[in-house]
């Protein structure tokens, strides 16, 4: 019986602001072509216009203030961008989901499909520093300390530092940490280990190492259906296979691939205007029956 991974929400994090707005009565959702005048956005009902005093003191610090007041947005979007990159990478067997409470905490799970750790299902949490991307590298902590040279046997934290000694913005991305976390289970490195026992056994007594790994994998599996370590609406929860719920979900997953194409065909008729022949870079170059002759 395969445990079914029952993360209910889609893999893309719900966007905070936009979805709701489109239906809101307050916001004008007029199509572009009919909207006629550019306007400032409407004011939310519970908002108060605050008239700042025009004192020189306030204005002096405003350049800083600009950053300060928009800082949270930059962080939020940096993390969203990171997350979209993760989604784009499609790392095999790795799934993450930002938490409900904070964009700085991501829940994840890794499925190991072959090698020494085959059948391992390891849940983990990624902690991102709040000065991202300028701070330290994000931390990755397994819910249960997996028996592995690079995983701290007490805290379960993966030794990320060895691969990302210094976190460099633009070069380092969170998906790289996830990829690294996956790779350590396939290609085992024993230098300066966090778990010296595992390292020594791997070098000296591979058989014992293997059996310890199997035990560790079993232990993790046995705790799979436990309540998540951190209580959060978006935490990843496993539950035993329940045909009533999961059959339908699986069906949906398997058929999903066809859908976009159909939708695409439909949308071709609905919207979008182009009469440019691919490759021609000339307007109205597409041969069409409707071409005036």
């Amino acid at each position, binding site marked *: 019986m395969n445990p079914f991974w029952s993360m209910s929400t889609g893999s893309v994090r719900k966007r905070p602001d936009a979805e709701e707005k489109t239906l809101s009565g307050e916001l004008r959702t007029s199509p572009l072509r009919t909207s*006629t005048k550019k306007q400032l956005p*409407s004011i939310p009902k519970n908002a108060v216009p605050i008239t700042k005093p025009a004192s020189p003191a306030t204005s002096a610090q405003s350049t800083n203030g600009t950053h300060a007041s*928009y800082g949270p947005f930059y962080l939020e979007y940096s993390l969203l961008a990171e997350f*979209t990159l993760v989604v*784009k990478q499609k790392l095999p067997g790795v799934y993450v989901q930002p938490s409900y409470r904070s964009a700085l905490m991501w829940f994840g799970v890794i499925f190991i499909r072959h090698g020494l750790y085959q059948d391992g299902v390891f849940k983990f949490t990624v902690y991102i520093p709040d000065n991202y991307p300028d701070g330290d590298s994000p931390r990755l902590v397994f819910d249960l300390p997996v028996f592995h040279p690079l995983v701290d046997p007490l805290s379960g934290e993966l030794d990320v530092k060895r691969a990302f000694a210094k976190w460099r913005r633009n070069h380092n991305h969170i998906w790289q940490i996830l990829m690294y976390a996956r790779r350590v289970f396939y290609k085992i490195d024993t230098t300066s280990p966090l778990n010296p026992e595992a390292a020594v056994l791997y070098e000296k007594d591979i058989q014992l190492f293997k059996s310890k790994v199997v035990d560790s994998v079993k232990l993790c599996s046995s705790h799979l259906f436990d309540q998540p370590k951190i209580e959060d609406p978006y935490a990843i929860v496993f539950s035993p296979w329940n045909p009533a719920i999961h059959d339908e979900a699986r069906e949906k997953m398997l058929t999903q691939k066809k859908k976009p194409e159909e939708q695409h065909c439909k949308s071709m008729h609905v919207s979008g205007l*182009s009469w440019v022949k691919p490759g021609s870079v*000339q307007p*109205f170059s597409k041969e069409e029956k409707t071409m005036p002759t």
Partner: protein
Amino acid sequence: MSSGTSISRNRQAPSLQGVDPETCMIVFRTHWAQVLKILEKHDPLKNTQAKYGAISPDEASTVQNYVEHMLFLLIEEQAKDASMGPILEFVVSENIMEKLFLWSLRREFTDETKIEQLKMYEMLVTQSHQPLLHHKPILKPLMMLLSSCSGTTTPTVETELVVLLNQLCSIMAKDPSILELFFHTSEDQGAANFLIFSLLIPFIHREGRVGQQARDALLFIMSLSAENSVVANHIAENTYFCPVLATGLSGLYSSLPTKLEEEEEEEWHCLLKDDWLLSPALVQFMNSLEFCNAVIQVAHPLIRNQLVNYIYNGFLVPVMAPALHKVTVEELMTTTAYLDLFLRSVSEPALLKIFLRFILLHRHENVHILDTLTSRINTPFRLCVVSLALFRTLIGLHCEDVMLQLVLRYLIPCNHMMLSQRRAVKERDCYSVTAAKLLSLTPVCCSTGITLTLETQGKDYILWTKGAQTKDSGRRSSESTCIVEYGRAVDISYLQYLGEAQEAILQCLKDCKVWSALYDGVNPDPATFIQTLAEENSTDVEHPMFRLQQRTPSTCSASQTTAFGEKMQLELEWDDSYDTGISPGSGVSSPQPSDDLGSTEVQPPAEPPKHIQEMKKNAIMLVKGSYIEESDFQDDVMVYRLCAQKDTQDDDHYKEKTLNAARECEVQSQTVVNGPLAKSQLETDLDEHSKRNSSLTSGVMKEQTNQKMTEIDPQPDLELKLSPQEADRSLSVRLLSTDGEDFIAQYDRIIKELDPNNANLEEQKLDTPDLVSPVEEEDDFENFSADTPSAESMSPPFGPKEDVSPTHASRSQSAPFTGPFISVVLSKLENMLENSLHVNLLLIGIVTQLASYPQPLLRSFLLNTNMVFQPSVRSLYQVLASVKNKIEHFASLEKDFPGLLLEAQQYLLFRVDMSNATEESQTKGNVQHSSNAGRGRNLSEACPAVLQPFLGQRGKKGLAQPGLPAHVRNAVLAAALFPEFLKELAALAQEHSILCYKLLGDFEDYY
């Protein structure tokens, strides 16, 4: 006499319920026997006396009464199974309907009789319980009646006729087999085929109910035609449906008001539904246009194509094109507003396509409509506002062809950026660097004033959705959080901007899915693009897109050469200022002898927009005292202002004039500074032209104008040997030769480019008036139009070749240019402080729309602040930085800036509130009216009662303090807008950073 209706209205259907059908039949037969007796009495065939005895009124009314009863019985007869009821069978076998029709013919066939008959049939076909039209004895007299009504002019008959036709069409729509019957019956009659259709055509453009019913009826037939190619063929080949429809548009257009009253309103810039509903002529036109749209939507492709063609060649080219080049500013504004309205009203892609094709590719007097429109953005008149509104509509279409012509084609070669930057085009801004940079442009002085914050922040984070939108419930709320420190004020408006940005980008992404290319700096490939253009250049004349226009019966002559010749003369007659720009020979330091001016060497000028010419002409006449005011010429106010606002005008005329020079100049610079490599090649090729700088130019131009001296044309040969370097040049040449006018707005840039010392546009502008002494202005207006600075500043490339320094050459070589539209929009934006609020709102709207496009080329140009562009290319960021400085400068000079700013902010918020309130009240009050049409209309008009109490200090007039000069008001409003604009752009940049991966991906499941 309206017996038909009296039957239907007075008799109650249930009265026959339960009555024995046989009884009915007997009654029917006896009635008929009575009627027949009278009929036969007057039938010349049956009764030789008939022709002498007049029909007595008594007899007529007797027949009438019996017939009424009979018809009633026929209508009420219930058919069993598929067979005919006995009464119907009797009617058919006795050929009763035909006999009755002959009877009415035998009496005086007056309009009243016709109406009577028409009503009778209408009642029969609409109310009968069994299908009647399948029976020839019923159909035939009906067709006879209809054909007897063709050519009728009595309104009452027309009304009845159209009602009946409408009913017949709706029956046909339900039962297409009847269509066949009608079709073939008409053939039998030998009358015009498909009589019903032909009868409807004259009513296409009719106003009121009759017209509407006729159009509805025709639409029924149109949708039938989609399935029936015989009908479609017939309509397309044997009827005048399409020409009538298209030329009708022209006719209706000509009766549209040439001036709109709304112009009095300060804010007016485009026609909203509320506006045009007030003008009956416009309503009529819009009805017909909407009808065309509907026909194109439902009709057979054959009809659709024909109609689209006729609209292009019968309306757009011969009517709209000249209308867009009218004489007075007001007329131009009106026409532009009409065009904008039409674009917004047309929904069918095939129809929209020809409108766009017209705007993008049609050349009126050799200028692309698009270029003319672009050039008008730079006019000081309110024409600019209307033109901006039109462009906003165009850009909002998300149409690839539009964006290609307007912007993208200039970005594809990637000349505007440093070579090393090309790979950065696709880069995405992971850490909101651009947003931060844009927001940091918020002027210090604008940080005071109103900021929107949440009332209470009890938690250490806020729920974005809940915080921003408390109103919506019911929907599954996605509760995500934003990390916000406790107690810190969060700019709520920014959340709104983010939401709007996402909406805009996603919509645009969706619409752009059908685009042919990604426009990411790789596809289309810059090198291939340049080459393609070069190749197409040589075969340009044969290009199908031009062929179309040449065939059209437009004012634009098929032979471009003659057109040019005439044009030249015309121009020279009244204003020789164009010489300077047009002819390289007249350049101050140019060695070209002036004799060449009139010869074939003189290339056609890039047409200045005609309205500018005309306005200038008027201005000249006015100044010289020879201007005689015409009674209907309202534009003298404009002309006065034209003269009063000398500075602006100087700039403008200066610009307009030099616009002509632009393309010339461009070619010059291209040619001359092309680097030693190319030069030798050119020189040998062009030997016979004495190595004059203009030779190549002339050659190219001549090629374009299809003149005879093709032997000097070096282009085709050259292109085969083009090095990449060369390719750039040939691109420019190509751009020039096919649509050199594209460069109309390029002037400023070229000046900057050619004169390294004169990097600043501002300086140019300041210089110009100085050179024209105000005293001289009166007696030599031309002089100031033909002012020398342009020539002087252009002199380097015109000078001897030795003057061209290598640096110069390398700078101009790639001719980085982001296109006339971008240039003109950015330069207008740079003058934000001088612009009126409405111009700024439109500009901001246009720029944010452009910034919503996901194409990396556009996105990187507008929103990537890390991008390094060619020195001559002005980026949006630079422009914004310059605006910031201007605002800060202005704030430092204006004593009470904080107070004024606060007022301006209040005013802007108030504006928003008002338009929201208007919208809400409309939605609540009147469902019919709940469209967005009314939104955003002038405040004081929209809701005067509510408004008055508040208007005091912060309303429109409150802000426009009596003592406050317009320029201060404009500047303060701009200062209040600017930070919001920055937020909008920053929000777009942030959203792009997380949405751009969707370009290739499946964003649909995102919706």
